[in-house]
């Protein structure tokens, strides 16, 4: 009896903290290998390379928690980076203004997504998938499917500069957004409304929450964060290309769910999403350190996605049957 309850609580812990356990497991395994994994440089590098996806994930988390989802982020990511670079190159525009226009573009896409999903009540994932396709085509048209580079050196310093010695600005920006997003989700009325809407749309509406506004706003924020991520990515690589965002949208949405944000809405949070993304970040870094071939890397990522999503829905099935 006692042993049974112990097993049960262990099972519950595993099913709740899958992502944390996966990350810890990888970190422990890397202790036994002879690599440069545990060097300050590598740890910063790991954060640096996951930062773009993390910023995307924060926006996606908000839409997912309020019961939507956004697969157009890959398209927004590439187009906004290209827009910023083209504006700086072709029109000699001030960098700040160019970034602002990119952000407005992202917000505009989010606004259209929100209109179609919230106001017109369409299926979010397919409509945003179509939006992503359109934007990827637009990115190809804008660049002729060739990468474009920025002439202005200062643009690359946005991501690669180091305000804090040893740490790229990109990581700092990511951490600032993490804190703000977490604060908004946890401690403001707006954030709590998102949870309410994701939990039960109708109940939230009858409770006096302006459901249309809040859910619509999550799409606008998500689009804007995706545009910001796109600008930072172009700044980091000093190039904008239509191929960067190919699988980004699905990976990020997957990672958010892997971290413990329920796709049904209403459950999860920013830290969980960050953890889910770190699973992939740490995994990739560790495999690079161990010289794993690229096909094996893709295979492992696929297996991790299938295993964790499988566990997620299995635990929900068990819960359903208990009720």
């Amino acid at each position, binding site marked *: 009896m006692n042993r049974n309850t112990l097993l049960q609580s262990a099972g519950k812990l595993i099913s709740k903290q899958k992502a944390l356990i996966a990350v810890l497991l990888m970190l422990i395994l890397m202790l036994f290998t002879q690599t440069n994994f545990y060097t300050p440089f590598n740890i910063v590098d790991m954060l640096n390379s996951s930062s773009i996806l993390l910023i995307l994930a924060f926006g996606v988390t908000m839409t997912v928690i309020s019961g939507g989802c956004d697969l157009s982020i890959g398209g927004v990511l590439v187009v906004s980076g290209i827009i910023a670079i083209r504006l700086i190159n072709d029109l000699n525009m001030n960098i700040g203004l160019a970034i602002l226009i990119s952000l407005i573009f992202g917000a505009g896409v989010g606004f259209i997504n929100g209109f179609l999903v919230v106001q017109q009540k369409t299926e979010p994932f397919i409509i945003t998938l*179509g939006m992503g*396709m359109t934007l990827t085509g637009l990115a190809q048209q804008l660049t002729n499917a060739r990468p474009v580079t920025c002439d202005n050196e200062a643009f690359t310093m946005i991501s690669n500069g180091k305000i804090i010695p040893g740490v790229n600005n990109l990581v700092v920006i990511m951490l600032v957004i993490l804190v703000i997003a977490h604060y908004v989700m946890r401690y403001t009325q707006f954030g709590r409304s998102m949870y309410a809407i994701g939990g039960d749309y109708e109940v939230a509406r009858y409770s006096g929450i302006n459901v249309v506004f809040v859910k619509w706003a999550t799409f606008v924020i998500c689009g804007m964060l995706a545009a910001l991520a796109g600008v930072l990515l172009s700044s980091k690589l000093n190039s904008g290309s239509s191929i960067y965002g190919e699988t980004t949208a699905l990976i990020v949405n997957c990672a958010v769910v892997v971290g413990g944000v329920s796709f049904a809405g209403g459950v999860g949070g920013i830290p969980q999403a960050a953890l889910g993304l770190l699973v992939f970040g740490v995994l990739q870094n560790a495999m690079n350190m161990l010289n794993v071939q690229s096909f094996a890397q893709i295979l492992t990522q696929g297996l991790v996605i299938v295993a964790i999503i499988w566990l997620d*829905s299995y635990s929900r099935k068990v819960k359903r049957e208990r009720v």
Partner: protein
Amino acid sequence: MNMKVDIKKFTTSIFRDYLVLVAILALILVTMVVEPRFMSTQNMTNIFRQFGPLSLVSLGMTFVIIGGFIDLSVAGIFSLVCVVTVSLIDPIGQVPAMIVGLLVGIVCGLLNSFLLLSSGALTQAEALFITFGMSMITGAFALFITGGMVLNFSDLAGNFALFTAIGSGTVGLFPISLIIFSVALVILHFFQSKTIMGRTICLTGGNKTAARLTGLSVNGSIMMIYALSGFLTALGAINQFSRTTTASPTMGKGFETNAILAVVVGGTTLKGGKGSVLRTLMGTMLIILMSNCLNLLGVSSFMQNVTKGAILVIAIWLDNRKPL
């Protein structure tokens, strides 16, 4: 009498999709006026020839969507089948290689359904992520088999006449790939409207609980859906590499979204339970004609992607506004 009713049913089901039909007719008319080359025999054969890979994959996707699920693993399975079949032509001969290719498709599809059923994943979102993971896994195997290289027919020592026939052979004016597609379409239409399994799939998409309580085999229909999708993907893959005479491990990229596009534009609702392969025929026809017309009019392939995405968004929007 019976015949008459069937024809009436057929016409009403077409007229329910009058939007797509009007779009197709308008497209043909405009292009005919602007570009007379559109009606040439050469262009017609060209259009017929394109009823190959994408249309077959979309037929499979139709059943998945009618059943209320989604299948992104199509991209990975497509690449895997291409690579496996071409690399097996030399060791075991062309016919066994083709059979193995089709079996790979079916097995991958069954694996999808096994993962979904064993975890009790019944929503579209869960299916989306699990099949996306499967797409990565199968794609990784495709990369592993070729080592990232592209396989060419010209490097093969064995006989591959069968594949050449599928890729570029014709019977009269009609390419063999069009004939394969037509046969598949007729069989699947019969399967969907006249067999118990076909009706079960529709009911599964409409209301799973009701289907289960009626005593229908919901699990069986889910397995059928994914096996069918895998099989038709494999058939589409064989069509594709037969035509291009090369097989690369990333060949299937984009097929999943394009197939969903074709199905949804045709008028099959994503909510599940409603739709038919005839609608998908219409959707693929629109997409093929559109890309042909845009090519003739000299629109860049990038702008074609933009129009495709925009049409998908608008089609879903309009579909959503229709009263159910």
